[in-house]
């Protein structure tokens, strides 16, 4: 068991390192200084209280969308709709707060998060129901639901929430915000907010739910073999819908927390938020392990926030930065390749031993 754990940790670490190394080679070939770039990347993410605050803030929604993706994956589904579920969560939380601005803060915050969770859950629940009853491919439906979420949200913002011709909603009242003067002072005016703690608590709860409860067991067994699970007396339809709903619910909370913590309003967006897709990469990097997702989110957030620092302090153009970050993500995705090679070698060796 511990050996398995070790190799599980080593593969993502190798992929990350490989991404950095290849990125460095590319920078050297193009005449930029990789050390300075990586130094800027690191100090940009962790160099001062403000950067740390921003990195932790960026990690917050990633943890939740990553958890959401991993739940669906455990049940054997590929929920690409994280971005859309995050967006409807964001929209609902802001809409809720703006509709009842005079309620007390605690009610507003819990209400907003609940609204986001419900909206996200319903959004992916649609794909779940279609999957369970009509065997519709959830990859297609969730992608399409992303577009519907994007344009629906833009339309709602423009028609109901925006002031006049603006393309963003009013800001939420201070009482509904997850930010606090204390955290702002601590992190030198960053946008860090209490959402991180909510995300970590949810990650711990999810680790418990997936490993120790009947629901988690059912979801995992459907993912391993849905026919066997059906034979064992589980209602596969119910579990499919449950897994997909739970998945969207988590992404929806991610949107709500980011909405009332980070943005404090909702904007007309040009494309679906990248947090949704990054959550997918985060979950893959962490093999769906909830605690691993927390760390993988921190890594991704460091790349995103630290990456912004590179064009500011060095001569490396931001395009190169994007290439390096994309490479790291690529190798993270390709960690399956490393794993595959390693497995192949193992089986070859055991065959050789027999002969």
């Amino acid at each position, binding site marked *: 068991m511990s050996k398995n754990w070790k*190799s599980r940790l080593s593969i993502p670490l190798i992929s990350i390192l490989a991404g950095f190394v290849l990125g460095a080679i590319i920078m050297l070939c193009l005449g930029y200084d990789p050390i300075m770039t990586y130094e800027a990347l690191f100090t940009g993410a962790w160099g001062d209280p403000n950067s740390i605050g*921003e990195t932790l803030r960026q990690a917050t929604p990633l943890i939740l969308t990553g958890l959401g993706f991993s739940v669906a994956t455990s049940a054997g589904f590929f929920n690409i709709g994280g971005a859309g579920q995050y967006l409807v969560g964001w929209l609902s939380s802001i809409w809720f707060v703006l509709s009842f601005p005079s309620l007390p803060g605690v009610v507003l915050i819990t209400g907003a998060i609940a609204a986001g969770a419900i909206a996200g859950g319903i959004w992916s629940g649609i794909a779940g129901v279609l999957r369970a009853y009509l065997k519709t491919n959830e990859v297609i439906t969730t992608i399409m639901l992303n577009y519907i979420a994007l344009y629906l949200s833009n339309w709602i913002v423009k028609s109901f929430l925006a002031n006049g011709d603006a393309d963003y909603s009013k800001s939420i009242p201070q009482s509904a915000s997850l930010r606090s003067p204390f955290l702002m002072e601590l992190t030198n005016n960053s946008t860090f907010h209490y959402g991180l703690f909510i995300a970590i608590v949810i990650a711990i709860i999810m680790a418990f739910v997936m490993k120790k409860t009947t629901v988690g067991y059912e979801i995992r067994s459907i993912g391993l073999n849905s026919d066997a699970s059906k034979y064992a007396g589980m209602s596969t339809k119910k579990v499919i819908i449950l897994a997909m709903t739970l998945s969207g619910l988590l992404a929806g909370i991610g949107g709500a927390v980011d909405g009332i913590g980070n943005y404090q309003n909702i904007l*007309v967006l040009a494309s679906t938020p990248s947090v949704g897709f990054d959550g997918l990469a985060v979950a893959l990097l962490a093999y769906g392990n909830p605690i691993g997702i927390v760390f993988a989110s921190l890594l991704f957030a460091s790349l995103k926030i630290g990456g912004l620092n590179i*064009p*500011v302090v060095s001569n490396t153009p931001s395009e190169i930065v994007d290439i390096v970050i994309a490479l790291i993500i690529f190798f993270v995705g390709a960690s399956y390749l490393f794993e595959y090679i390693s497995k192949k070698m193992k089986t070859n060796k055991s065959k050789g031993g027999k002969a």
Partner: protein
Amino acid sequence: MNKLIKKISLAILALGIIIPLSACTNRSASNNSESQNKGNSLAVALLTDLNGVDDKSFNQSAWEGLTKWGKEHNLTKGLGGYDYVQSHQDSDYPVNINKLIKNNYNLIYAIGYKLDKAVTDGAKQNPNTKFAIIDTVVPDLDNVTSLTFKDNESAYLAGMSAALNSKTKKIGFIGGVKGEVINRFEAGYVAGAKAAVPDIQVDVKYVGAFDKADVAKSIATAMYNNGNDAIYQAAGSAGLGVFSSAKDARKSGKEVYVVGCDRDQTEEGQYDGGNLTLTSSIKALNTVVEEVSNETLAGNFPGKQHKVFGLKENGVDISKGQLSTDIWNKVEQTKQDIIDGKITVPEKP
């Protein structure tokens, strides 16, 4: 752990050690912008929204102005001199502002109304940093100056030119995102077209984003196929899709034009059969950026002020492009009428 994995990781580790060593040698060479810019009291940064400074339009114009200003003052691009930063997502704005401030930039241009909130917060938290925001007004802060343009005036002339040049009596307008700023373009364009040719049809469509050239292209293709023979695009870098569509239409023998926006876009209209940029409405972000930078350097930062730049202030203009002398004369006359206040151009469609 498996042997192959071990080998791969060893190789990667080895590379990880070799590369830093080889990189150290040229390190001093690339880190000299700061020393070159020593003694400069004003470091200026340009913060764009989701579009880069290579959008051939709005941001590029501002960046050209800043580059020119920096060179005139013997500054280099980088720390202590002048630089730009692009954002990848809307939540990056405050992060970028803080990173610029931390690296001692003391004048920050925020290019675009989308940066409104980030500038308001950033200016309140950092009273010693000066901000100049374009296209929107951030009031009542000593360290923020707001610079807006009467785009409707130049758009009026653009609409007039497109209408007078049109053979089909149908012209188009493609905007980025509907809102206060692009409304000015639409209103001016439509008013100018109708004033010049009363029975002209103006087809108005929006992309819904400033960075989606593919969407702009498909809208433009539909418009050209519908008989519109000129399209004015106020859509940031998405507008490049309109140029691409016009070039395709020219290949199939249609005589179509694009009206450029924010910058003289003659270069973008170049194709092997000539040039299809009919004219361009110009937003002189470059000269405004130079002007405000110079004022700030002289200690006269126009804080708390809202400056409006129209035809009269040379803040907006129109280029001759491919316009016939006949049309150009009419345009120049109208331009003078607007400056003299004989024509008032609407701001809202």
